[in-house]
């Protein structure tokens, strides 16, 4: 197990370097950001040259990249164009997005797994069909549609909630954005749980458990559910990464000042330190979430052993 983890951690290094380089390269390819800092007027050449020099934009790309990586290993993610250290931006943005992601994941797990179990146990009945229809509808609606519609209905028309999230982003304010963010994945979790449950319900070990005379409740929770959740856990694990990165749309709609907001702003202003820094952290989150998922397999399924 220990060796497996170390091997996985070592594998992360090339992935990390490769992805950061790609991002760095892509942001760089967008062009020189200095001109845009001066708005609609021609930049004063002397000031522009100084800014370029300070941001190392006058150096070749590989030098910039090496310098940047050197900084990262010292824990310095550079400075955004508005003079704020990127680490400071991360310090405010990541907790907010993390909270939003957690709310979304909790909703996803509670509602998704429950619906999945219910419809999986009642295959072919009315409930199963209505859940199927519900998930199909949810999957086919893009986030920005559900976001704006729910925001308008609940926030403006009925006035039940505030349409946007305040700077502090308290948990209760994040409920609605959390639901919006969770909707699509929620449908996947439901479908996945249902299918996996339906399949395993016919497995030998379940028949054995029933034959042993175990109560139905125990059969479902201890035997059936535990085995059926393996694909669901994988999905949720990888979803953490995509939810954190994919919150851009939701964060814009509800004016949440999280990772998506900073990324959007960074891309718009071609602020490479911000974009590369945030994406780098997201890459790390993604990699670790995947590792944790793989390790969880062993816990859920005793047949899986890592060496």
């Amino acid at each position, binding site marked *: 197990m220990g060796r497996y983890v170390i091997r996985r951690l070592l594998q992360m290094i090339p992935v990390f370097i490769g992805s950061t380089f790609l991002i760095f390269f892509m942001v760089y390819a967008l062009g020189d*950001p200095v001109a845009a800092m001066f708005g609609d007027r*021609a930049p*004063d050449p002397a000031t522009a040259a100084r800014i370029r020099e300070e941001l190392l934009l006058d150096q070749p790309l590989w030098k910039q990249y090496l310098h940047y990586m050197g900084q990262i290993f010292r824990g310095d993610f550079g400075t955004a164009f508005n003079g704020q250290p990127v680490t400071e931006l991360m310090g405010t943005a990541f907790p907010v997005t993390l909270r939003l992601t957690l709310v979304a994941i909790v909703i996803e797990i509670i509602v998704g797994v429950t619906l999945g179990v219910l419809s999986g146990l009642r295959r072919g009945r009315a409930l199963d069909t209505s859940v199927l229809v519900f998930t199909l509808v949810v999957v086919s609606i893009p986030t920005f549609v559900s976001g704006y519609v729910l925001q308008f209905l609940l926030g*403006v028309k009925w006035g039940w909630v505030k349409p946007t999230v305040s700077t502090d982003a308290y948990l209760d304010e994040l409920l609605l954005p959390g639901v919006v963010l969770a909707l699509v994945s929620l449908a996947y979790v439901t479908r996945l749980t249902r299918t996996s449950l339906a399949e395993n319900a016919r497995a030998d070990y379940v028949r054995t458990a029933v034959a042993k005379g175990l109560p139905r409740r125990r059969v479902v929770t201890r035997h059936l559910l535990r085995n059926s959740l393996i694909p669901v856990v994988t999905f949720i694990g990888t979803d953490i990464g995509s939810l954190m990165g994919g919150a851009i749309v939701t964060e814009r709609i509800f*004016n949440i000042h999280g990772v998506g907001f900073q990324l959007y702003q960074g891309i718009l202003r071609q602020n490479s330190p911000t974009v590369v820094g945030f994406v780098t952290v997201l890459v790390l989150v993604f990699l670790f979430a995947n590792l944790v998922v793989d390790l969880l397999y062993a816990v859920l399924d005793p047949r899986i052993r890592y060496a």
Partner: protein
Amino acid sequence: MRGATRAKWAVGTVAVALVATACGGGGGGGGGDGKGVLSSSWGDPQNPLEPANTNEVQGGKVLDMIFRGLKRYDPKTGAAEDMLAQKIESKDQQNYTVTIKKGWKFSNGEPVTAQSFVDAWNYGALIDNNQKNAYFFGYIEGYEKVHPESGKASARTLSGLQVKDDRTFTVKLNQKFSTWPQTLGYPAFAPLPRAFFKDHDGWLKKPVGNGPYKVESYTKGSAMKLRKWGGYKGPDKARNGGVDLRVYTDNNTAYTDLQAGNLDLSDDIPAAQLKNAEADLGDRYINQPAGIIQTLTFPMYDPQWGSEKMAKVRQGLSMAIDRKTITRQIFQNTRTPASDWTSPVLKADGGYKSGLCGKACEYKPAEARKLIKEGGGLPGGKVTVTYNADTGSHKDWVDALCNSVNKVLKNDKACVGNPVGTFADYRNQITAKKMKGPFRAGWQMDYPLIQNFLQPMYYTDASSNDGKYSNKEFDKLVDEANAETDRQAAVKKFQDAERVLVKDMPVIPLWYQNGSGGYTDRLSDVRLNQFSVPVYDRIKVGS
């Protein structure tokens, strides 16, 4: 109507939300007693909030609240009126003596002295500080030493600035500039306290100024709380208890919040909502001229477009644009067809002259066709209009403009749009003189003077002369205007210079841009100034 029903619902929810905000707001509450706090939409300032480093509206909003300079532009008339300046005198339009008023303080208790101004200006001009508005100090003697075109500064301070005593300093300009005192309302000329230099990082975290508001708290990238400052000396004391600025990334979201009563004032109505705004907000919808003009600039450096005989083609193109229809259909009348190169906010007094361009800026299909033919036709039979596609609704109007030109020329392929992905890339191509045809340009004035609409853009080698237009007669008239002591005579000269543009048409004036905004019924006396920034200190907050 969808819009109408929305409005009704909005009013219902406003009441509910107001109760909530009144309880939640720190010093809020109060029924029009000048203590109510309003919330207003904001965008994350692009640069650190230093006065000489702020060149966009969002940072400008804050500076306008926490700073007062020597002059201030009257939000209604646009006239530059004395604020901190007791008097600014000059005998020769080149050497000025500035005397500041007694008793002004910064909100941290420091007095505002002549030194506060001189230090601030020296800081703004020095190249080491990377201030984006440094060129504002370019008229002061010694600028080329502290801000050389390349290399290191050979002096730390502007030789043209001399402190005489606590309340007096002299300024020596490097050329005659009669309207120079009137440029001093620009925020870049604000005074700075010693705290700015002693603890610069601390100052940036919580800026200290001498304006009617002081910063209570600043969460970078998301919110700023400003409160009325009791010690403010000026005549324009805040009529409300404070302003909470909230950053929105999406103006649609701000508009939704405004409808729900979760936000009191939004000064950026999304283009898609303009149709509904009047129905949704009624008389709480603001649509008011701002000092912004949108133009189509020709690359005069390109022989295909810049040659003398092409002037007819350039004029012809201008006459092929149906400005009226485009501003109505695409912009819902938040733009006004332009008929000169300035802006209505200058008023006739300040140099705005409706119709100065004459029929060259009117929609005349037959004459347009004739002129373009006489000038030898479009180069290669077509014209591409370049624009940046990442912000604004540029694509919409460029397509409409091309459509209008194509209809006039009876050729579907005569005019096509050429989008450039990002604004930065777009600016880079312009600076590198890579434009092969006309390109869009927008000019937001720095100060309400006709000089600012002409000299920076059309004077030979001026800082924002993107098309590299050059005409000796124009330059001469501008020089004469600047040397003129009488304001009205100066304005006349500038207008004469503008008439040169009619003939050459290096830049087609398209339309004047309005500022738009909306507010909840809790507020009254809301208006925008010429820079399309709300005049916060005048706003009254009801219960």
